């Protein structure tokens, strides 16, 4: 049976107007997100990220509740009476009290999941465009190379924020409800801005690094090796040099994830003396390293994406 709308779907000359290319960047970002969430193997990592969030969520609730409601009470563990506040001592390192360190620590842990997903997804999101030569499909459309890069960065940035900034904002909201909410939100407004700034920092740095490394090596295995080198080997080397060889703490700058953490805590206006951060470089020094890295990525992308003819 013929559908009455069928004739409307027949190919005919296009008379309408088209949107500017920034819409194409948004479409690319949506496609990237769909690709990330379509891969079933990543859902185990998303589940792990969710578990970290719930751990922080309920632990923060528990710690604050005990502090406020039952700090002086005791419970019996076996035959030994233990103060309730002592039971949550092991959580002290995480600062689960709605302070800047709470959100810094949360993003620190969630960031590991983000890094793993990005290391595995880089080839799918960006590398394949170069490896299989799909770039002509994109660049034969009315978009420029910068719109292509913007689309990819937006997609990856949205993913990073879904995994870090948005859950951190949820924790901030929860922390306010655990205390006297009006004064908490007013007093900690800079923390809210810090969370957003930390998220923006991760978005910019990880997106650029991800696109640049994916354009460079293209395949999943080398990409994982590069990211492992940057984030795991960098950390190991930094620890070895500073803690074993007693080199200057400036050597910790080779640990990119730590650099991001330090800048993030700076944004959150966290107290650097309260969380064993003494043997670290200054945040501004970390900021210089991260800025140089971002500029290097941008210069590489500019050069590489202009050189599409050699690839294809």
């Amino acid at each position, binding site marked *: 049976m013929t559908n009455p709308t069928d004739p*409307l*779907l*027949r*190919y*005919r*000359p*296009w008379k*309408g*107007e*088209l*949107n*500017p*290319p920034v*819409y*194409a960047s948004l*479409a*690319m970002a949506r*496609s990237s997100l769909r*690709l990330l969430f*379509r891969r079933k193997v990543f859902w185990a990592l998303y589940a792990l990220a969710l578990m970290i969030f719930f751990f922080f969520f309920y632990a923060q609730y528990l710690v604050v509740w005990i502090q406020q409601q039952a700090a002086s009470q005791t419970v019996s563990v076996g035959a030994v009476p233990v103060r309730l506040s002592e039971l949550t001592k092991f959580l002290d390192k995480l600062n689960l009290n709605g302070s800047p360190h709470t959100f810094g620590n949360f993003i620190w842990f969630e960031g590991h999941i983000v890094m793993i997903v990005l290391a595995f997804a880089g080839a799918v999101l960006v590398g*394949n465009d170069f490896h*299989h*030569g*799909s770039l*002509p*499909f*994109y*660049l*034969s*459309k*009315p*978009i*420029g190379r910068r*719109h292509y890069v913007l689309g990819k960065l937006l997609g990856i940035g949205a993913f990073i924020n879904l995994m870090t900034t948005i859950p951190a904002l949820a924790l901030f909201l929860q922390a306010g409800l655990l205390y006297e909410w009006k004064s908490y939100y007013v007093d900690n407004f800079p923390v809210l801005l810090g969370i957003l700034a930390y998220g923006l920092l991760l978005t910019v740095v990880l997106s650029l690094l991800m696109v640049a490394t994916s354009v460079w090596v293209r395949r999943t295995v080398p990409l994982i090796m590069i990211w492992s080198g940057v984030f795991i080997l960098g950390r190991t080397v930094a620890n070895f040099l500073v803690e074993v060889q007693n080199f200057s703490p400036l050597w910790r700058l080779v640990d990119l994830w730590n650099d991001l953490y330090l800048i993030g805590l700076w944004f959150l206006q966290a107290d650097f003396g309260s969380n064993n951060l003494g043997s670290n470089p200054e945040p501004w020094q970390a900021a210089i390293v991260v800025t140089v890295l971002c500029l290097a990525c941008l210069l590489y992308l500019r050069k590489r994406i202009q050189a*599409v*003819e*050699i690839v*294809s």
Partner: protein
Amino acid sequence: MSTAVPPSTAPLLLLEQVSKWYGPVLSLNQVTLELNAGITGLVGPNGSGKSTLIKLATGLIAPSLGRVTVRGRDASDWRTRHSIGYCPDHDAFYEDMSGREFVRAMAKLNGFAPRDVTDRSEAVLDRVGMVERADRKLRGYSKGMRQRIKLAQALLHDPELLILDEPLSGIDPLGRQEMLELFHELAGQGKCLLISSHELEELEKLTSHVAILSRGRIAAVGTLQQIRGLLDDYPMTVRVALDDPKELAKHLLGIDGVIGFDFDDTGRGLIIRARSPERFFAGFQTLILDKGIEVREMEPLDDSAHAILGYLLGGSGKT
């Protein structure tokens, strides 16, 4: 803000003295080519510069020297690509996507508003005969189905200039016929189609206008007959079948342009070699009318694209 393509009377595709180097390798050498409405075949052997010319025309690469414009606007300007539809040779897709999803994604890249994406995607899928099969994953598509999907995404925005790299490769005979009809129809709407193909027989069915590339240069542009006529060093060969070949042979050498002839194996035909096809055919027509010679069949033996390419490029004309 929306972008619209300004109407223009400038040539649809114009390459002016274009050269392109890849490092020390000269891929295109001072190529000048102007195309307007109609179908033009782009032929040449591997490494002749076809792919480079196509990438220059689509603005994917910039020339080292010279200028490439589409309707007067530089081809590397992203706005120019409102006028260009490109169907690449290779088919590198996101294999997890279905054909429909891929075409829709390309429609969004073209800048179609969300409300138009579905209508336009369905329209082009229908036009290339893929509506029924569009929900299958791309990884399960045959070569021919991939070609159709690539063509669909190139047609989305109704471009004036369609650049098709090996569009018939892998398509079954029935599908080829449909594609050829589609190309004719698009050309009939005033569009310009630049089709690169190794399949010269199919290309000849589509158009007689070709641009022949050899070693980075345009060896010839025009209809096959025009190009054939210019090949003075290679006399045209025509087979004439008739009842009394000896009678015709007596008068043949008097025709302007004829340089020789042989009787064919059957004894009921002549194979004539002549320069300047125009003068030969005019003189031959006058002769048979004046002498009342009855010709049953007349067949040029070497004005096919293969033969012309063979003469121009050497070898068999295989591209």
